[in-house]
């Protein structure tokens, strides 16, 4: 289980998240896929932190988790608010700002 395994796993998880964001139109599913991408980046952080023997990477991941929690709190408030007004969570139908 060398570093390459963890990095490859992280790359795969990230790509799955990218696919989800690109092809799914449900805002909450897109949200979950963003969490997947954050987790992939965290995994790479921890793997390289372990490889270099430097715990800073783990502290970074800790802060990333904090920011993810704040992001989810605000993001879901916005999604629920949009749903209240438009009765939809399909991101293609929420296009009032489109020129």
């Amino acid at each position, binding site marked *: 289980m060398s570093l390459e395994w963890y990095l490859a796993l992280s790359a795969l*998880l990230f790509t799955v998240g990218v696919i989800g964001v690109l092809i799914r139109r449900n805002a909450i599913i897109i949200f979950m896929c963003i969490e997947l991408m954050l987790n992939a980046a965290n995994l790479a952080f921890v793997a390289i932190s372990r490889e270099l023997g430097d715990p800073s990477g783990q502290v970074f991941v800790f802060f990333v988790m904090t920011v993810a929690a704040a992001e989810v709190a605000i993001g*879901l408030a916005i999604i629920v608010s949009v749903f209240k007004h438009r009765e939809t969570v399909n991101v293609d139908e929420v296009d009032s700002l489109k020129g």
Partner: protein
Amino acid sequence: MEFAGIKSLIFYAFALLTVASAVLVVTVRNIVHAAFSLMITLFGVAGLYVFLQADFLAATQVIVYVGGILVLILFGVMMTSGRLQMRIQIERGQLILGGLVALLILLLLFGVISNTPHWEGIKDDGSTLEPTTRTIGEMIMQGEFLLPFEVVSILLLVALIGAALISRKEVRDEE
């Protein structure tokens, strides 16, 4: 060694579990099933953190992601679904174009990984390693991460006020 073989087997099991459930998050039609697949993915990542000797992060992953973020996402699902049908069709053009872009990103990432200088590999014995909670505590409380730690509280304050403002406004509009 016998133990090392079993350990790598468990590692592969966790890796497979993580990626497979992540694929399910993206492909499954029912949004509640997607949320529960995400839970398995998050648990799998926590298991991988244990393999990387990041015990504090593994526990934090379970507390924050599974216990907090996932619950909030499920709340979001329950507040926005209901009678309305949540199963939205995937358009074919989007699927092809998105897949192409994702493939390019995957190739790019693998190219970067194969070009990284080769370190000697993660040492697997790990028996001498300390639990990481103390190290993380020292780095945050007296090290270079003290300022980020205090800034995080402001970030959380802003998130809290923003969330309160957005959801309360809705309730007032309703009445």
